[in-house]
């Protein structure tokens, strides 16, 4: 900014600013390091809840609510490879909290942290046993005959498979958030379809370590995940705009990766990624074909994110044409795979629309 001060004065001001910024760098780095080192202290999944049902590592929770307005309860289902706390990230920024405020009866299915002894659990066990029973227990605990199922990421795929297998079951509304269905052209498929990728060796230790899957997920966008995130943290600390709690909550969640049970992993990789079985119509669970056209009775909401590199929009959209239901809605929004529902703008940009869609379909 030269202006009336003249170039000499501006140069001095620039030099002073450079010295000032540089002098602040050590403190910035110390504060950034402190934030990263104390990430594990972040409180996530803090909304009060009680255990409704457990089986093996799976737990069904019900959140406390004193303002229930909608009859049909909501069951939240997340992926096997991350903790479901993302639905209840932190006080003041929690989808669970939001749904409770909107008058819904909210349940959460937590797959737990599987051990090597759970390597026998396959997709059929998760869909036909764990999820099936959780839906039943949700309806029982809520005193209703029907439930709304909200699945996110792999949890959405499991929820969709369940609804297709039990179209006359208690699921009344199905909401799928950033769901992988069609794996054609995806980088994941390219990775696991190479001859060097031996799925039998991958599962030979019982379960595939969560850390290994996390490495693969982050490799999809290596610089963004490993460099840009930290650089932006340093920048926000330096400019004094850092939201410490928000960063730590998300970092803690991202860094917690349960292992993927061997059998389920093998089926996920071979059937979904290599064979694209859900789109080809060849996916069998306990001898029954997963046919999405059987989803006729349910209202279905499909949510995609334009910057989703884990479950790209193109990998979800075919689901829309496979459904038998007449009540199908598609929200295509701005955001990433997780950021869409858990980012700073989710509360104002996507949650109210989800609640409104559900409210209109949750009467007794």
């Amino acid at each position, binding site marked *: *900014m030269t202006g009336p001060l003249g170039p000499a004065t*501006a140069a001095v*001001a*620039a*030099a002073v*600013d*450079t010295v*000032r*910024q*540089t002098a*602040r760098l050590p403190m910035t780095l110390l504060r950034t390091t402190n934030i990263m080192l104390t990430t594990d202290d972040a409180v996530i999944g803090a909304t009060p809840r009680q255990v409704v049902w457990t*089986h*093996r590592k799976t737990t069904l929770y019900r959140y406390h609510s004193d303002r229930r307005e909608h009859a049909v309860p909501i069951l939240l289902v997340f992926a096997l490879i991350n903790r479901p706390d993302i639905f209840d990230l932190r006080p003041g920024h929690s989808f669970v909290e939001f749904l409770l405020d909107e008058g819904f009866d909210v349940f959460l299915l937590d797959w737990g942290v599987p*051990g*090597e*002894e*759970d390597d*026998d659990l396959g997709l059929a066990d998760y869909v036909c*046993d764990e999820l099936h*029973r959780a839906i039943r227990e949700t309806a029982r605990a809520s005193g209703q005959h029907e439930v709304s199922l909200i699945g996110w990421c792999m949890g959405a795929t499991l929820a969709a498979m369940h609804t297709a297998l039990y179209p006359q079951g208690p699921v009344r509304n199905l909401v799928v958030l950033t769901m992988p269905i069609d794996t054609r052209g995806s*980088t994941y498929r*390219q*990775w*696991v*379809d*190479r*001859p*060097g*990728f*031996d799925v039998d*060796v*991958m599962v*030979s*230790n*019982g379960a*595939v370590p969560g850390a*290994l899957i996390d490495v*693969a997920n982050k*490799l*999809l*966008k*290596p*610089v*963004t995940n490993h*460099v*840009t995130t930290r*650089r932006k943290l340093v*920048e926000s600390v*330096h*400019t*004094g705009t850092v939201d410490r709690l928000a960063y730590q909550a998300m970092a803690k969640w991202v860094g917690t990766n349960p292992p993927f049970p061997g059998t389920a992993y093998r089926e996920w990789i071979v059937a979904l990624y290599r064979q694209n079985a859900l789109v080809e119509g060849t996916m069998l669970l306990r001898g029954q074909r997963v046919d999405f056209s059987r989803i006729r009775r349910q209202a279905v909401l499909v949510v995609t994110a334009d910057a989703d590199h884990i479950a790209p929009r193109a990998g979800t959209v075919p689901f829309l044409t496979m459904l038998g239901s007449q009540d199908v809605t598609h929200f295509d929004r701005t955001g990433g795979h997780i950021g869409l529902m858990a980012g700073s703008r989710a509360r104002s940009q996507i949650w109210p629309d989800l609640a409104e869609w559900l409210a209109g379909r949750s009467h007794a």
Partner: protein
Amino acid sequence: MAEGTTPLATPLATAYRAYEQFEAQLAAALDHVVATNGFADLLATTATNVMALTRIVNGSVDRMVRSTRLAARQDVTDLARQLARTEDKLERLLQAVESVQEQLTHEKAPAP
């Protein structure tokens, strides 16, 4: 990285902007690299080797521990698996009992 909204084109700010541009270009380049067959081969073989090596190490440690007559990892896993299967049976029994209970309730209910 200039503080606040300072419009000064300081050397530090200029360098930071240049770095940001470099990072963006590097990100785009590496995003392209990870989507190539060459990288896929590298990753696939590395992941398989890591898991194979883990299996060998686990097996060796297990044999060493077992030779001292202590329960090794596999023994603990086997026990946990037995517990899990017992819980599976209990769950199925519970579901059956609940089903019968509901059936009886329906039968007892007076006809409308």
